[in-house]
């Protein structure tokens, strides 16, 4: 084994030089690049997590708003139904009242007509009776007195009823 101190030192020097050059040219920049990439990937993952949380938050807010809107809609619908029912009830009552009024008026009209008819009928009966009596007695009596007698007669009849 022919050891040469000069060659050993040259080889060692060449290696040290190579370490220095590669450290500056390759290892450090590449390690830095790897770190940067790791950091970027980590930041990206964090960003994704943050975005996911944001989306979840938005979804939660949307769900809340949706539930609120549904509740409001349900309330308004209920209110509309209640109002409708109220109006219907009101209409029913108005109709009933009007019907009652009409019925009442009709009854009053009927009573009035009946009374009028009764008066007319009584007069006509009295006239007919007088006429009949005149024909029967063949003589002319005092009209006013006769009529009073007949009316008294009719009242007596009504009383008998």
């Amino acid at each position, binding site marked *: 084994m022919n*050891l040469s101190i000069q060659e050993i030192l040259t080889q060692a020097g060449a290696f040290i030089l190579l370490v220095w050059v590669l450290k500056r040219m390759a290892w450090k920049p*590449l390690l830095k690049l*790897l770190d940067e990439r790791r950091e970027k990937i980590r930041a990206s993952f964090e960003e994704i997590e943050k975005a996911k949380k944001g989306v979840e938050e938005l979804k939660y807010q949307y769900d809340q708003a949706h539930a609120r809107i549904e509740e409001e809609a349900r309330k308004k619908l209920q209110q509309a139904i209640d109002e409708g029912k109220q109006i219907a009830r009101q209409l029913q009552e108005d109709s009933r009242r009007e019907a009652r009024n009409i019925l009442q008026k009709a009854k009053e009209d009927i009573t009035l007509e009946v009374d009028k008819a009764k008066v007319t009928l009584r007069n006509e009966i009295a006239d007919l009776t007088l006429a009949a009596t005149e024909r029967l007695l063949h003589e002319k009596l005092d009209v006013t007195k006769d009529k009073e007698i007949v009316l008294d007669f009719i009242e007596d009849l009504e009383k008998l009823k």
Partner: protein
Amino acid sequence: MIEETAHSAAHKAAASHEAAHEGLKELANWITLVNERWHDVPFVNVLHQWENVVFSLTAAFFLIILSFFATRKKSLIPGPLQNVLELAVESFENLVTGIMGPRGRAYVPFIATLFIYILTQNFMGLVPGLKAPTSSLNTTVGLAICVFFYVQGIGIKQNGIFGYIHHLMGSPHDIVGWIMVPLNFPLHILQELIKPMSLSLRLFGNILGEDSLIAAFVGLGILSLSFIHSPIGLPLQFPFFLLSMLLGTIQALVFSLLSTIYISLMLPSSAHETA
């Protein structure tokens, strides 16, 4: 004419320089061929004498150029070359921090350079016309000395000079430990000195063995067809190329891994306990 050519090719292919290898032959490289042709030219002689340094510098320039092109246009979305280099860097980062913990990141450049430099040098033995500089003890000793001083420097920097000496004394904590200091101290110093020796001899022996094996089978391949005066031989060395690639990678890994462990052992106990 053909016989002469075959003889010349066989001669050139098996042309080996025995310098420092005690009879072990290696394949001829372009410097040995140039030296055979113009051996009386002083520059060629110098080149031949320093061929391991020349090939080491070739490996170093190759790596510098490669890293230049790989990192020329750095981007967060890497190109193919940057991707390969990033993969290597990340693998080494994981390897080193796996052994030493997060503090090991500072030593990644040294360890990673050591690995790719040794790997490139080992593989150079497979390229025709080149030579694996790691088949020379001068190269491996040079690298091991760098590791030795780096490890000791880290020991002094991380522990302080007294902490470093305390470490060399075996970190005694009780009376028995202090009694053992006269024994432990020289043993630890010896241990620190043996570490680079073992590193360099292991790498040198393995790579020289592989290269010699390949050279022997190249010679055998040429000899096997010499009876028909073939200018080329049978590629009998091919299986050993694959073996050499595997062992070259393993040896580079062993060298860098052991260096990592030596650094780790030199760090203050809290540093490698956290690993």
